[in-house]
């Protein structure tokens, strides 16, 4: 389990990184925290000719905020989010999710942009960003910036809308009102493992945002609009009653135990949303 020979280059700017990507004609890979690409290199599942290290690109550490959106650069680590090194516009959701990702050693290096780009369907940020309606910002030297809704960012497991010369540069997180409440629950067989099922929900009455999501599927996570509507109309307890039907309906292709776990994860996220703890 040793990687095949490859070149390594450390980019100083985002443009440099995208230029190198373009030059290599698909034969290079972006390296940020290394927590996914590292094992894949060792297993020789990834065979890039060149690794482009973007950890030292200042632009990818930028934070831009206005009254509506809080944008964070792609190379902020899970641990930094967990530790409150950046502002949390989600009333505790982001640090809560970050704290549950893998192990601290992984969180110390793994980045939010890397996790989203790798696009493991069971990864926490994939579901979380889709649930809160975040926008993923993609940098490319030719057409420039592109904005993609997080909920449609994944095309399938480990595949995204990123092209071979794209770099995920930042994530735009919507600011929620002080009324915002959330729930996040994942079914894991053991601490630090990828989730078997993720359920997450948010309710922000002042902004009129209600979203419920089931994640850790075969591909991109799915929003549960019926459950969200019921959450809006009748509250969390009533919403819990319609989760199973909606999941059975939308995710009929999954096996029974998986749908069961998804149902429970979403229901428990609703319980958490309704409990005083999350406010």
């Amino acid at each position, binding site marked *: 389990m040793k990687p095949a*020979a490859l070149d390594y280059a450390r980019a100083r700017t985002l443009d440099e990184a995208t230029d190198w990507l373009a030059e290599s004609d698909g034969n290079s890979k972006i390296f940020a925290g290394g927590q996914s690409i590292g094992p894949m290199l060792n297993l020789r599942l990834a065979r890039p000719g060149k690794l482009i290290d973007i950890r030292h690109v200042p632009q990818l550490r930028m934070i831009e905020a206005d009254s509506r959106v809080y944008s964070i650069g792609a190379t902020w680590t899970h641990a930094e989010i967990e530790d409150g090194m950046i502002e949390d516009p989600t009333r505790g959701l982001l640090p809560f999710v970050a704290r549950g990702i893998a192990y601290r050693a992984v969180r110390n290096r793994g980045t939010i942009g890397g996790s989203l780009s790798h696009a493991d369907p069971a990864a926490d940020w994939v579901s979380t960003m889709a649930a809160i309606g975040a926008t993923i910002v993609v940098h490319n030297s030719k057409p420039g910036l592109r904005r993609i809704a997080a909920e449609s960012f994944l095309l399938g497991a480990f595949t995204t809308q990123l092209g071979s010369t794209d770099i995920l540069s930042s994530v735009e997180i919507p600011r929620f009102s002080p009324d915002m409440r959330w729930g996040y629950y994942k079914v894991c067989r*053991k601490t630090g493992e990828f989730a078997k099922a993720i359920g997450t929900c948010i309710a922000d009455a002042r902004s009129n945002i209600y979203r419920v999501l089931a994640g850790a599927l075969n591909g991109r996570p799915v929003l549960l609009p019926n459950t969200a509507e019921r959450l809006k109309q009748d509250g969390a307890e009533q919403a819990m009653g319609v989760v199973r039907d909606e999941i059975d309906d939308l995710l009929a292709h999954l096996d029974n135990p998986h749908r069961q776990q998804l149902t429970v994860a979403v229901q428990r996220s609703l319980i958490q949303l309704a409990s005083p703890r999350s406010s």
Partner: protein
Amino acid sequence: MTHENGGEGIGARVPRKEDDRHLHGRGQFTGDIRLPGMRDVAFLRSPVAHALITRYSKPQGYENSVFFHGDLAGVAPITTRSSIPGYKVSDYPALAAGRVRFVGELIAMCVANNRAAAEDLCELVEVDYDEIPVIASSKAGLQRDATLLHPEWGDNLFLETSFDRGMDGIAKAAPVAVELKLSTARQVMHPMEGKGLVAWWDHRAGQLVVHTSTQVPHLIRIGLAECLGIPQAIVRVSPPDVGGGFGYKCMLMPEEIAVAWLALTQKQPFRWIEDRREHLTAGANARQHEYKLKAYADERGRLLGLDAEVAVDCGAYSVWPFSACLEAAQAGGNLPGPYDLKSYRCKTYSVATNKPPFAPYRGVARPGVCFAIELTIDAIAKAVGREAWEVRMENLVAAAAMPYTNITNKHYDSGDYPASLLEVKRMIDFDLRRTLPPRDKKGRYLGIGFATYTEQSAHGTKVFAAWGLPLVPGFDQAHVKLTPDGALEVRAGIHTIGQGLETTLAQVAHEMTRVPLKDIRVTLGDTANTPFSTGAYASRGIVMTGGAVSRASDIVAARIKAIAAHLLQVKADDVTFREGRIFSGEASVSYADVGRAWYIRPDELPDNVDRSGLEATAAYKPETDNGVFSYASHAAYVAVDADTGLVEILDYAIVEDCGRMVNPMVVEGQTYGGAAQGVGTALFEESPYDDNGQPLASTLIDYLLPGPTELPRFRIHHMETLSPYSAHGIKGVGEGGAIAPSAAIVNAINDALSPLNAVLRDIPATPERILHAIAEARHNTADKDAA
């Protein structure tokens, strides 16, 4: 720090000598060895489970760096003969000889200056395969028209055994009968350090030197010499620190033969370090059993008879020396467990399948049979409407019956099995917890499960001979020597693999000689400077080598006293060891005085001094070859989330008896570690294969090991019933912890799920299996209601 009554000898809680280097990261493992000019080996492994190799070629320019079977001239395959009639022998070549029988089997050995380059080379080797239908389960292997792994056998059975005593008429007469079908998953052992070796040619000694991560260096010397066709005298096996063995490292491996052959023929250093993927997919396979059980009992749950079939999924080849039949032999022999059973029938099938060879993992078959018999006891309890612990009490061999010879002729030497169960029932707070609601505040179902087992430890010559093994342990040797400055050197051929022998053997030597523990140095394993031992396996080290060290130390102690008596001008009977010196009345000499007199100033000794000197080698085995039986009762208290299928172990209690404890802290460490592996067996670990024989768990993402947050705080209570047959009454303890957890935990899960009528019969108890069991129970109930 020390024993309740002070001291550093047998019974003292002294910190381990080996901890200092390990905790500071200064141990030296195979992967730490650096030799000038050392080259790395990577193996090209079969990507298919069953095929003929129709063509293969070396990459151009690398003809001298790539080796196939045909290049290893004169190298014999691993062949494990057995004296058991009907046992079929498999030839397991170091590199595949025209046919591969499992994914991961070695095909080519590639050598380069580093591992990455060696792996590059593997990718350049071309091999064509003509695939053959795959036997991916023991069930498939037993089919009448099954493809044969070893065509000359006529079937896919390494061995089929049958035992039948007293079962006539039982089925008809018994008021209660229960029937169970059970399975235990294939597991992979996962010592922290995988397998690996460095081999080189020592020109000065004229020896092939092999630093291999092994539990059994003296056996590996024999096995390597036999396979390489060279005299044992030119093979030195010098094992470095070993980061856990668990059975994986007690067998000769094809990688060892191939790399040793390289060093032998090229006279250069080579190494191979197993990576975790190799470990997961091509090595260390264990535990996979299938059971069909019928148990008969009276209305109180008293066992009247047991009728069993056990199939072991043995993989493609027999390992050396413990063979493909050890697992089934142990299963059949140990299934009656700690119970007084008068009628027993058991058929075992050791089935060849297209998977890596089955290896003897900590507990060898007993985690499986303990799971089987303990679930059976709980099923009987349910059938007769009694608590499971009550039915256990009804059946456990009583203390008054000791020593007790059971139906499979296992001689339980001592102990009080029922007392261990009652104590663990008290520890788990059974009476109070039984009065609590069946669900906790989170809505999870609560349950308590028990398991009791015996652990045959340090079984010896006759037992292994009866299993038909090609290599049978006899006496273990130890060498003890007082140095000129009064320290003690202990040498033995067993190896230290993390089980604390450097400390516990020193404690035994201290017990006999009273040389301060800090002045006792234990050297283990190297065939060049230790006396013969078959090694560390079967929970035998502290009994066998401990006994040998005890005897050798005793001999040296007498000689120390004789010389001390001369120096003190008294009779030998008049001197005693005290406070690290040798006394006669108020006068005393030091150990250094004795060493100095013998080695440096013999002119001060009389002419008629005992000429044997201050060193001795002694051999030992217990008075019985049957082994000495440790035992324990485990109790688990679990919460089962019926919505997610997740299980949390809320409490776990262990009452264990391994006879005299040389170091209770080491006993506890062994028990914790074993129990942690048992939790893995119960809840997490599974190496599934698809129908094509492809391993589906090839990284630790797919193969889950329990981590700190998944493990309960094991609470341990010791009983200490001395064995009448072993030196100091010691029994073995290395494997025990791993035996009972799957049984105790699954019994607890089934107890928790009893309000839902759900029953789990297969491990690991994954969320999917639990949800499936609940859904099935719901379905059955609905059917009943409909009817």
